């Protein structure tokens, strides 16, 4: 633990700022938000993924992550969250490489769809204005979002997941210090 990196510089204000960015991202799917007050987490975590993690995850939310021992130690130290071995048992799933299939994550139940997992997915870049066509609540007509480094077959897997609404998984895409969200209510058409 000697090389442990710090978390938020100002835990109260930085967590609020990160949460507001996530709230705005979830409320307006496909709009890219910046997180200027992110921490500098250990590789391979991006600043945005680190900020989203510290803002939302704590002792009440089991975490699954694929980012290696150093990143896991950092998350456990700063967030105090339990780690789980199976992604299906996690409230938050953080994927820096190929993520677990959407179908294996917890989709919630008919009476309690809020119990569904949140997938924090690290991608290469996020860009508004072209790429996928997004529609659904939070979108006036259509938002476009280009995601470089999205997992293979993601759009098809999303369509299958969308068919289960109100069950489903909510996704926060992270790239550098930028995020965009795909709440389960959104539909994606390849552009």
């Amino acid at each position, binding site marked *: 633990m000697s090389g442990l990196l710090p978390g938020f510089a100002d835990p109260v204000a930085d967590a609020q700022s990160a949460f507001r960015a996530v709230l705005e991202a979830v409320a*307006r799917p496909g709009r890219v938000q910046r997180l200027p007050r992110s921490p500098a987490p250990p590789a391979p975590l991006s600043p945005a993924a680190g900020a989203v993690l510290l803002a939302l995850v704590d002792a009440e939310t089991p975490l699954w992550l694929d980012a290696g021992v150093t990143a896991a130690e950092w998350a456990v130290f700063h967030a105090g969250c339990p780690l789980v071995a199976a992604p299906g048992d996690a409230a938050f799933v953080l994927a820096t490489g190929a993520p677990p299939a959407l179908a294996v994550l917890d989709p919630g139940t008919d009476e309690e769809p809020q119990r569904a997992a949140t997938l924090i997915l690290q991608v290469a870049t996020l860009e508004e204005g072209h790429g996928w066509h997004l529609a659904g609540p939070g979108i006036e007509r259509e938002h476009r979002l280009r995601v470089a480094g999205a997992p293979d077959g993601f759009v098809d897997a999303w369509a299958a997941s969308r068919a289960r609404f109100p069950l489903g998984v909510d996704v926060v895409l992270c790239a550098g210090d930028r995020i965009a969200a795909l709440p389960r209510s959104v539909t994606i058409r390849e552009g």
Partner: protein
Amino acid sequence: MSGYNFAYLDEATKRMIRRALLKAVAVPGHQVPFGSREMPLPYGWGTGGIQVTASVIGAEDTLKVIDQGADDTTNAVSIRRFFARVAPGLATTERTAEATVIQTRHRIPETPLREGQVLVYQVPQPEPLFRLEPRRSETRRLHALADYGLMQVKLYEDIARHGRVGSSYDHPVMVNGRYLMSPSPIPSFDNPKMHRSPALQLFGAGRERRLYAVPPYTEVRSLDFEDHPFVPLRARGRCSLCGAGDSYLDEVVTDDRGGRLFVCSDTDFCGERQAMREAAE
């Protein structure tokens, strides 16, 4: 006020509420349970709205608080002062256009809301089926099955008895075509403002420990029938102070001989119109 965390709530509570809010936005109109905390004012005074506001605001925000449209009533003044004391750096305002977060009890401002604004409703009873089915376990199942026949029957009986769909406030709405939702006791006059609003709408019920949300540009349809369409109600008259003929009006009794007049319920809207009229004269 020293000795308190920013915005009164501790960070673990804020995180819990924030997680619930994100799920609420992802499933528009669905009621999400949360661990409501004891607040320094009693249930019924907006504890749900205050906890949502406390979890959302930061020092860069500008907060407006209204009670039945007014910025200057006891509930609004005390909540605004509470946040000014426990959230150092937070600006407060009475102007709808300047606010980034607006906490409201039972009204939606007349001035159209815009993107970047968050409207936080204080909700006494989040369950729209509450008067028809008292068992929470049963209403949860009805929401899961999207089985809202009970409410349609209630509206039908209103029409059979009164000749019209009968609620002048808290008229139930369907959100995104999926969940039946209580708009909180706003007048039915305000229901159309929820439909495809550019602002994010969050709802907090402290005593009932539920919160829910309507994302921007989301369909919010007031429940009705094809042959008895929903009609928002408004007192026939004009505001005696600013002359507005299209705002929601409060009736004020002026003497004991039947004298009465109407004034805008939204004090900021009314004040601005009066100022504009004075400037024009």
